């Protein structure tokens, strides 16, 4: 019996020693997961109830979903999301990569430039939206500036043009988040094995070929990470649009998050707002599930190799 106790002691002792470790990992993780899961389930439940100003009991089946899907607002918001999401992700990816490659040329003042490009990320979306709303306003911003120089026929009125207004949101969002892609890509570029680069150079590869054939292929994992992070940002965009266009002109630049807020808090239709939120969650899952599957496949590949 004393032997058994002796055997158990180191084990218990080890557990006690690692307690802080477990606490820091598991407590926040469980809290966060509990939060997300419980509120998601709650929203899911509300989306099937006739709730208006407050959550109510009752069951209306898919009524809220059909009602939301039938509104013009949701259709416009979803079309906008497809356009905004793809344009924003592609453009911010390319801008970030371009900036990273340019910064990678061992230029002077790299630190300063890097901070400048990263700086927009430190600004809140509301500020970004407000500043750009003035810059893009034809009556006071860029257009007026150029007109005042004498080029009177110059027109840059995307902000008040229903068809182009969504692109102003793309512009502001790219400006804000290109620095994030840049930072990740730069780290990736710097971690490419210098021997590999030297070997390619000895083989006579020019700079373009060097990037295309040797360096960029190593950046795939980073690219996927950037795309996924930017996509989930795109799907949940709210404050930027609210400050920049307010969903206008008219309702031309609505995005799903604005529709959810509008239903829940401005129209006092909690049930429909919850249904719209669940639809948003489904779009998000459509992005995240393939990503998780891809990660899984990658992990198995490396394990086998």
């Amino acid at each position, binding site marked *: 019996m004393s032997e058994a106790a002796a055997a158990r002691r180191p084990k218990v002792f080890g557990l006690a020693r690692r307690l802080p470790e477990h606490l820091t990992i598991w407590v926040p993780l469980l809290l966060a997961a509990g939060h997300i899961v419980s509120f998601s389930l709650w929203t899911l439940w509300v989306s099937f109830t006739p709730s208006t100003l*407050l959550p109510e009991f009752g069951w209306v089946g898919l009524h809220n979903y059909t009602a939301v899907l039938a509104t013009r607002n949701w259709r416009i918001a979803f079309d906008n999301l497809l356009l905004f999401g793809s344009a924003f992700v592609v453009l911010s990816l390319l801008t970030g990569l371009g900036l990273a490659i340019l910064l990678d040329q061992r230029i002077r003042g790299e630190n300063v430039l890097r901070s400048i490009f990263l700086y927009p990320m430190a600004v809140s979306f509301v500020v970004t939206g407000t500043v750009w709303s003035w810059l893009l306003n034809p009556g006071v911003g860029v257009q007026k500036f150029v007109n005042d120089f004498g080029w009177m026929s110059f027109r840059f009125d995307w902000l008040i043009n229903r068809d182009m207004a969504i692109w102003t949101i793309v512009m502001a969002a790219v400006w804000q988040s290109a620095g994030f892609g840049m930072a990740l890509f730069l780290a990736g570029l710097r971690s490419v094995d210098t021997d590999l680069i030297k070997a390619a150079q000895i083989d006579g590869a020019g700079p373009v070929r060097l990037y295309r054939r040797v360096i960029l292929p190593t950046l795939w994992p980073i690219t996927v990470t950037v795309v996924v992070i930017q996509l989930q940002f795109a799907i949940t965009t709210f404050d930027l649009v609210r400050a920049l266009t307010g969903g206008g002109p008219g309702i031309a630049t609505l995005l799903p998050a604005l529709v959810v807020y509008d239903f829940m808090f401005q129209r006092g*239709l909690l049930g429909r707002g919850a249904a719209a939120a669940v639809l948003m969650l489904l779009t998000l899952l459509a992005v995240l599930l393939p990503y998780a599957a891809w990660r899984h496949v990658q992990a198995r590949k490396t394990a086998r190799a």
Partner: protein
Amino acid sequence: MTNLRRRTVLAGTAGLLAVPHQSRAQAVKPRLTVISQWTSGSDGAAITALGKKFEEKGGIWQHSPVPGFTTEMMNKLRAQIMAGDPPACSQLKGPEIAAWSKIAATTDLDAIVAAAGYEKVVAPDLARLHKPGGHWISLPLQIYSTNMLFLSKRAMDKAKADQIPVTWADFNALAAKMKAAGVTYPIANGGTRPDDGQKFEASLAGISPAAYRAAIMNLDETALKGPEVKAAFVQVRKIADWMDPNTAAQHFSTNLKRFVAGDMGMMIQGGWAQGVLLNAGYKLDDFIIAPGPTDNGKPVFLLNADAFIFWQRKEADLQAGQALMAQLVMDPAIQTMYSQITGSIPVRTDVDLSGAGWSDGQRRTAAALKEAVASNQAVLSLAHNMAQQNGVTAAMIDVITEYVKDRTITPDDAASRLNEAVEGSH
């Protein structure tokens, strides 16, 4: 037997609780918890002044302002109701009073209102909004008209015009004249949703108050598809063509400088614009205020009223506070004080506005209300959430704001979309 006795005791206690507040007020110091969004500018000043009066009467005033949009104030209210701790009194307006009164118990103010003889000095449509289910549970505080016509003196001089337009035809003629005389944009505007909504409601109510009542307030399908609604959209298109398209989602106050300078000619705004203009340093002789255009020549008054709703509380001091607050809000002297600060007009139709402290604009607005009530042309504003609950309002304003900003939508399309929006929002 015991059962019966218990019931008698219970009834007795209930009776005690229901004893008029006056007799209990001596025992407790009246206290009032209030939520509103009025934090700054003239609104903040006015409610602070009201709080001072409340304290002068021996009460404890506990105001928690929630700055920002009305939505944020409502979120706070919702949270407190869900927690079972509603404020004794909160800001709420229009049909939302009826909607919210279904989710939490309110205080019946019938006795206090009857004692003050208040009902006969309030416009009937307004009274109905504040007594859903037949009982007074809320009290209107101040009134604005959302369809006042502001004319820039300098733009009028430019166009060599001195007639205040009465009908929409007059209005259109004056706008064309201004445009010809070099006024860049004959209509000054903002680009917000209520701003667009106001253009439509002013047009429809001006063309036919009866059609407005049927289509917008009663959501009558024939009226919604009727010729008046289409005519209103035609008029809105004219207005939109005379507006500065560059305003995007800006607030109307951004353009006040150009309006006063005569670069913009007319503005269809609520009475509150007077306060905003004066606050921005402009003088009363920079502009003229008149009732909005009406085709039958008699003023149409689009009512917008701020109000307080009283939530049921068990605490004796809060109940005493509610009684005191109700008396204050109905008091002509208090209404005078409040409206003189904010630029609105009093709810009571029997307040004399001839004295100092009132502007010509306010006098004209009050006269218009009296006349409009008499000719049954006082209707409830859609754009400012008085005609319908928020869900229906938002769906309708979506159509209107899209129409204002998109000239490819025809008036016929807009009218049928408006009808669809109403159907879809139920």
